[in-house]
């Protein structure tokens, strides 16, 4: 009875886990032809220097729910060629979350950042980038996948230990457990960061960061297209943004693009 119950619970859990995939798969397969057509049209438009059209086509694909770093990179390129630095950096930053180690993306993003007028005043400490290097080389999905694979490997090793009854598996199991904890914790942190540590990019050429939520509030400082800011608070149609120490203020949401 006991055994049967546990088996039932596992089956239900796996069914639940797979249900969303199955649903999503159906959605995607239903739109694949349209998406592929729009994507190819976007590529053609880009190659023919019709950047407005390319932006429209790529956006059309992105609007169907495709979250892909390469697609975002292409959108960034199209905006860049179209002279829209704010949107170009926004889409590059979005792509960076999905394909952080892509050399083309790094090159183009560096190039675009070089055109931003505002000098960056606060940066993540390089030591953190070194210490948590894997989180800057892999995207969120990869981190989760690795955590799952490591987790499975760990429990398989423990299971094997039941049969082998020798201590030779103890050391590899310890290492895999450590890695599992690291990657699982990273996945949790990424999930937290995605929800609570939000960043945005200034979209128009010039934006006044104000002391209040109204248009006649004092302009504290001015930011330019492509500048990345941290979202600290949300209030109606405004975000309170942090640019650097002692440089915070309110900006209308329409003037910022969230890096999601």
């Amino acid at each position, binding site marked *: 009875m*006991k*055994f049967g119950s*546990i*088996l039932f619970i*596992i089956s239900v*859990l*796996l069914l*639940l*886990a797979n249900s*969303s*995939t199955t649903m*999503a798969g159906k959605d*995607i397969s239903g739109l*694949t032809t349209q*998406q*592929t057509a729009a*994507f190819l049209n976007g*590529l053609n438009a*880009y190659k023919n220097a019709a950047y407005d059209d390319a932006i429209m086509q790529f956006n059309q*694909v992105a609007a169907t*729910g*495709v*979250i*892909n*770093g*390469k*697609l975002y*990179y*292409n959108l960034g*390129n*199209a905006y*860049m*060629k179209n002279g829209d630095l704010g949107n170009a950096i926004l889409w590059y930053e979005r792509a960076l979350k*999905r*394909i952080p180690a892509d050399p*083309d993306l790094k*090159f*183009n993003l560096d*190039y*675009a950042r070089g055109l931003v007028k505002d000098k960056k005043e606060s940066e993540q400490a390089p030591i953190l980038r070194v210490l948590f290097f894997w989180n800057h080389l892999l*995207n*969120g*999905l990869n*981190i*989760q996948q690795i*955590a*799952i694979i490591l*987790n*499975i490997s*760990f*429990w*398989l090793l*423990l*299971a094997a230990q*039941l049969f082998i009854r020798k201590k030779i598996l103890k050391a590899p199991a310890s290492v895999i457990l450590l890695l599992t904890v690291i990657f*699982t914790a990273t*996945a949790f942190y*990424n*999930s937290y960061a*995605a929800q609570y540590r939000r960043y945005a990019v200034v979209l128009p050429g010039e934006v006044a960061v104000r002391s209040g939520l109204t248009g006649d509030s004092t302009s504290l400082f001015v930011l330019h297209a492509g500048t990345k800011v941290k979202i600290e608070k949300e209030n109606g149609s405004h975000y309170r943004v942090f640019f650097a120490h002692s440089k915070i203020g309110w900006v209308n949401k329409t003037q910022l693009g969230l890096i999601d």
Partner: protein
Amino acid sequence: MRRFIIVLLLIVGLPHRALALEVKAVADRNHITTGETVQLTVTIKNGEGNVDVTHIRDFKVTSQGTQTSVRIVNNSVSREINHTYTLIPLKTGRLTIPPLTVTTGGKRSRTQPITVRVTKTAPRTNSTSDIFVTATVSNANPYQGEQFVYTFKFFSAVRFQNAGFHKEPEFPGFTAKKIEKNRSYRKVIGKRNYNVIELTYILIPLKSGDLTIEPSILGCDIPSGKRQRRNNPFDSFFNDPFFGNYARKQLSTTPIAVKVKPLPGYGGDQPFSGLVGHYSIHAALGDRKTAQAQIKTGNSVTLSITVTGTGNIMDAGDPLAHIPSEFKVYKDTPDDKIELTPQGFKGQKVFRQALVPTKAGHYTIEPVQLTYFDVETGAYRTVSSETLALDVQPPDPDEVDETIHKFTTSAQTESPALNKLKVKRTGHDILTVKDDLDSLKSQSPLAWHRFMIYLAAPLLGYLILLMTLKITRKQDNAYQRMARRAEQALKTAQQQSAADESFFTLLYTALVSAILSTAGKQGTLLTYTEARDILITGGHSDKIADKAAALLKQVESARYSGIIKDEASGQNLFTDVKSMIRRLLRQ
């Protein structure tokens, strides 16, 4: 050291009397000539303070440091601080050192004014000075950017020692470069033989207008002219300058006024290069430095433009060469060879660029022009290089384009194949789009609940496996353990005779264990009824069950009552038990 400690103890230990603060200023001379200096000493007695010398207008003031002395007279300690300054007169006549304010602990004191008469220096030709310094410039009216020479000379007709600058030459408003090697020679002035040490600086005015080169002060020890009475024969020996009697002397140059002329307005067609002096320009093709060259399409040839001359050559910029549009141009870092001579900066700067023709044909490179300001004529002048001709042949079909690889960056090396080109960025753009269709695959992270489920599933799987193993092993163990015990007991009994005390006990153990193993149970004792029930419940026939129960009863009787005494009966019972156990375990 000991003396110092004693003095210190005296200062601290002796009762101090309230001594009055005294301030005074003393000049070592009241009459000097231009080129000489006055040493001013401001003494602060019984106190500490700062001396304000900013009100001295007629002299240039240079601080020479501070000295402190302590005196103990009649049980009272007095302390003196001497601030020493060197004053260089800025004009002739009766000059005044005004009262100087000394601030000590919030209290102000003033010194007495001092008057110093400054007269013009007598001409050097008739001079009888043993030692003196001069400073001259080669051009007191240069153009802005024109180089000229500043020469400092130190004349000495007597032996001297410890010579050194108290104030080195300073050139505000000029860029100055000292020629490292000092000149040293002899010169006769007014029938006196002088040793001359000459220091040379190359100056380039940075701005136009009236500029002043400040005086330089040189100090040295020379033999003092005082004669001592000779009390004994050794005096003449020890009065020799070799053994002392030197006096410190400070020598100052006079300030030099330089009137720098601005460059006249330029209205020419060619851009002004910023060079001032005298220059020429030369252009050549290839390593042989000829005006003509022949290459194939895709190969490279080096165009060298050399600017040579005297003046601010180091400021020469890249001359504008009109290269036909059929050429790709790769510029190299300029190479210069500039010397600092007693006449000024002199040398050449070479600008190289690799030209790579993309199309065959006969091409002409127009003369490269350079406009500079000629200081000799006081006008702008344009010089031109030669016209260059380049014959470009079509490429060989199998020729490998090694254009860039062969281009040399170094002017000194003439073996281009051994040198590598520093790759320079020739344009700025982003990399192109990605056309893989996997751009449509979603890379969204797993939903929170799915991730948790995937993490939990292996743990649950493991727990299931663990429980399953526990259950199955428990069952297996009871059966196996009892079967093993039955076999073991049977085996031991086989090695014994029926007369042995434990023979029937072993048979009993073997039979009970075999019966219990059929039910997967553990134990050591069974009644006949229990044995029968177990076997029937375990699926054995009533016949077998009855037979096994009877056998168990027989073994138990033999075990406790000892009714079987002979070996044969005992072995028969063993055979029956063995046969029953085999049957039970087999099933």
